[in-house]
């Protein structure tokens, strides 16, 4: 017997009801359920299919008729189905559409749908990757080849083609790039900053970027190369392109380069190219111990974290340099109250300026070369009959004030030592001296004062309060002596504020990505707010070479 019920006054389209019929028929206690609107045509269908129940006589086209075939059931089957019907109707009306991922099945379609696309991220099988990369280059699109198993010959051909067209091929086997904030394949969410990265090593880039973030600094771009780019065969074609791109990018102030040790010939080429760039570069050739720490603008690092640390130091110095006016006086003076601080400053400065420190320390003079001078005001010479300048800083106050007259001095390095035993407010004295000095200076010949603070937040004077006082009075405060010395040297360098003005590489202005291969890469890009289209790649003509060849000729 057919059990039945009618749900009055609830119109549903027939497709919804067919779907619901199917769903309800799967319930264990029934053999089949038919759910239809009570139209005359449907009523005759209910009759013909054996679902008739006389209740349906009174159903109108606006009522839902439910016929149930069930054998030997000891539960109230009508109540059960009625409940399930309500649930189904509710969920049928709650279908939501999420944000759709843009998709295409042909490269041309992808380009049409995303006309601004400038990069194709390829993660398809290696044997097809080269063909697609060539197509992308033909359409003037940059390429990131995540795919591996691409031959050396193909890699050379692709990279040469890219170079001729002013494009870059990252990879093959390139796992990581972050360009203009776009995470390409394996990448970390990294703060924006001024450090650009070139890396043949994917996880190397990831570790450096995350270390940079740990130091509260950020990156402009990280350009991946793939592991083979620096081999003798490939000759670092993409590494050179990437270095040029970053050197032309005005937002990138520091470049960090990471790779395994390159072929010697390639290493020379890379170092030479780096020396042509008027930006500091941190180079890490993993596993090859650097002979020296610095060669002109290149800083050699030994480990990933060291590379990141040096880059961050340079980054902070760059930011500080941008915040101060250019100086006219080309001499650096240092007036220190701490003897060891003076010694380290002298050592660092001597290294930078390629001069030697004073060995005698006569009158506390730790360095006196080419007019640059670092003095330890805590030397016995100054403390005869008066307290140590850490307790009574008035002697430094006078020395600072006197520098106002010495127009050749552009940068003054000082320390501020706080803590038990020290002066209650050493910043006050420094500020007073600087004020006096500045009175004697004109705007086009400023005296830039760079301070480091020795002491903690818990000290009676409070580190932050002292720093804030200094900053409020135009004094630059850095974290440590290497930063302070680097900045001072940078400021007396005549090219310090001469920004190279070259055209920013188009790719670095922002990427729009055509993603061919792994769908999750496209979803990641979309969730990062990057314009992306997922190209559902498949081999031409299903991989049939005869048909593919015909298609090529029928274009």
């Amino acid at each position, binding site marked *: 017997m057919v059990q039945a019920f009618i749900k009055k006054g609830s119109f549903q*389209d027939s*497709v*919804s009801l*067919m*779907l619901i*019929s*199917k769903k309800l028929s799967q319930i264990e206690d029934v053999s*089949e*359920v*038919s*759910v*239809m609107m009570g139209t005359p*045509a449907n009523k*005759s*269908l*209910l009759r*013909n*299919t*054996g*679902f008739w129940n006389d209740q349906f006589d009174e159903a109108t086209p606006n009522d839902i008729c439910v*016929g149930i075939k069930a054998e030997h059931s000891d539960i109230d089957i009508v109540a059960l189905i009625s409940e399930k019907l309500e649930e189904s109707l509710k969920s049928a009306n709650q*279908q939501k*559409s*999420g944000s*759709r991922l843009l*998709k*295409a*099945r*042909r490269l041309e*379609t992808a380009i049409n749908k995303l006309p601004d696309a400038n990069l194709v991220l390829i993660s398809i099988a290696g044997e097809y990757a080269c063909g697609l990369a060539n197509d992308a280059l033909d359409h003037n699109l940059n390429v990131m080849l995540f795919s591996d198993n691409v031959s050396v010959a193909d890699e050379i051909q692709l990279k040469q083609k890219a170079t001729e067209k002013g494009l870059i091929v990252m990879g093959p086997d390139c796992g990581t790039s972050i360009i203009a904030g776009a995470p390409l394949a394996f990448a970390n969410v990294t703060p924006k900053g001024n450090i650009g990265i070139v890396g043949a090593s994917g996880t190397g880039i990831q570790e450096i970027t995350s270390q940079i973030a740990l130091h509260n600094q950020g990156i402009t771009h990280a350009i991946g190369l793939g592991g083979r780019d620096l081999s003798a065969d490939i000759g670092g074609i993409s590494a050179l392109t990437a270095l040029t791109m970053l050197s032309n990018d005005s937002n990138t102030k520091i470049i960090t380069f990471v790779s395994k040790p390159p072929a010697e010939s390639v290493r020379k080429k890379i170092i030479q190219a780096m020396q042509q760039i008027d930006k500091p570069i941190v180079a890490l050739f993993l596993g090859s111990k650097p002979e020296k720490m610095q060669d002109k603008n290149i800083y050699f690092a030994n480990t990933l974290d060291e590379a990141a640390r040096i880059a961050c130091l340079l980054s902070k110095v760059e930011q500080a340099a941008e915040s101060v006016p250019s100086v006219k006086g080309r001499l650096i003076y240092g007036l220190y109250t701490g003897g060891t601080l003076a010694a380290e400053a002298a050592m660092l400065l001597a290294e930078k300026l390629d001069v030697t420190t004073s060995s005698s320390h006569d009158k506390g003079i730790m360095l006196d070369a080419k007019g640059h001078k670092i003095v330890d005001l805590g030397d016995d010479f100054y403390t005869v009959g008066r307290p140590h300048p850490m307790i009574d800083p008035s002697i430094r106050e006078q020395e600072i004030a006197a520098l106002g007259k010495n127009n050749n001095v552009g940068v003054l390095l000082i320390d501020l030592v706080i803590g038990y035993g020290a002066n209650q407010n050493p910043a006050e004295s420094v500020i007073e001296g600087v004020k006096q000095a500045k009175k004697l200076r004109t705007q086009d010949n400023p005296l830039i004062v760079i301070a480091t603070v020795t002491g903690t937040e818990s000290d009676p004077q409070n580190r932050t309060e002292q720093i804030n006082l200094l900053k409020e009075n135009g004094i630059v405060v850095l974290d440590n002596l290497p930063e302070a010395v680097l900045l001072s040297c940078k400021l007396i360098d005549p090219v310090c504020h001469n920004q190279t003005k070259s055209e920013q590489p188009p790719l670095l202005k922002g990427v729009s990505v055509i993603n061919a291969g792994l769908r999750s890469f496209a979803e990641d890009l979309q969730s990062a707010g990057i314009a992306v289209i997922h190209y559902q790649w*498949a081999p*031409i*003509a*299903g991989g*049939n070479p*005869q*048909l593919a*060849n*015909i*298609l090529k*000729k*029928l*274009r």
Partner: protein
Amino acid sequence: MKYNSINEANEAIIERIKEARPHWIGVKPAKEAVPTLQQGYKLLHAGPPIKWDDMTGPMQGACIGACLFEGWANNEADAINLLKNGKVEFIPCHSVNSVGPMGGITSANMPMLEVKNMPHGNYAYCNLNEGIGKVMRFGAYGEDVQQRHRWMRDSLAPALNEALQLFENGIDLTAMMAQAITMGDEFHQRNIAASALLLRTLAPKLAQLNRPKDEMSKIFDFLSVTDQFFLNLAMAYCKAVMDSAATIEAGTIVTVMTRNGKDFGIKVSGLGDQWFTAPVNTPEGLFFTGYSQADANSDIGDSAITETFGVGGAAMVAAPGVTRFVGAGGLDAAIETSEEMSEIYLTHNPMLQIPSWDFQGSCLGLDLRRVVETGITPLINTGIAHKKPGIGQIGAGTVRAPLACFEKALIALAEKMDIKG
């Protein structure tokens, strides 16, 4: 070749399709529309050429129905004898400027819709929609079916023809379809808006006819409940357009897609009248209660001419009312479907703008090369017939054209153009 390149030829075809303006100008007996039907036992059928033995249930059922309707046999057994003994000649509708839904069986005295493509002057024909349930196109042939066909021949067709003559140049179907696509029709699975617009246009003229009130009332009743009445007009429309496009005789645009229950057949602009066939697939979809996939007949009918033109499955996004036939995704799935289809069509039809597709036009210019390149085969929205003759429609769903016929055509084109693969 008149054209310097395939792309140039395709451009010319697209231009011609865009220019086409088919009007519904009349209803006439098949033997007048298709003069070859005047002599002998001849039946038009859907799809590429087929023999009686190879026909599936619905088409065989319709053949029996047509023999009875024409009076060539007095009963089912006699009709089957006649058909089995090869006494009846079968002609594909497509070979005589015609199309027919499902079985597509059309005989001399069945009425046909006449459509004229005004700028190019060519005609296309299609039989009349008989409504739903037990109908001849799905293979039913019983007395109720016969009765309806006689009524259509004697009453409905003459009245419609008479009313049409009261219009100057008949009814402009492009304008009507442009409106209906914004109202949720894709012209294959769903024609309810177009059918309603059509009745609205016809009504004042029908009312002017000097015919008995009860006859007119029956006609109005029929037109008011026949939701798919416009389908047959849409088919004739698409046939008129694609026949006109085929006169370019070059390029790679598919001008015919059709199925006879056994084979799927296509024709391509650059390959003239040649059929390229491959075995049909079986539609999948939703079934009326009591029926299941196991009962479904394999793909059949000339109605895929709508997808050839670029509506139907390709315009799924226009018809939210039928979108769930493609799966549970609703509108999203419909957008996906139309987006996928737009990969294999060369352009969009500015005449048929789809609101739910940001007013992009429906697809236009199905390119053989694109199909083979991507492996994306046209998706066809279709009714599902019962395998056995005499039962009729049991559901509706979608089916894909088989890739092989496109591959065969591509190879043939390469040979014709002396290109070696």
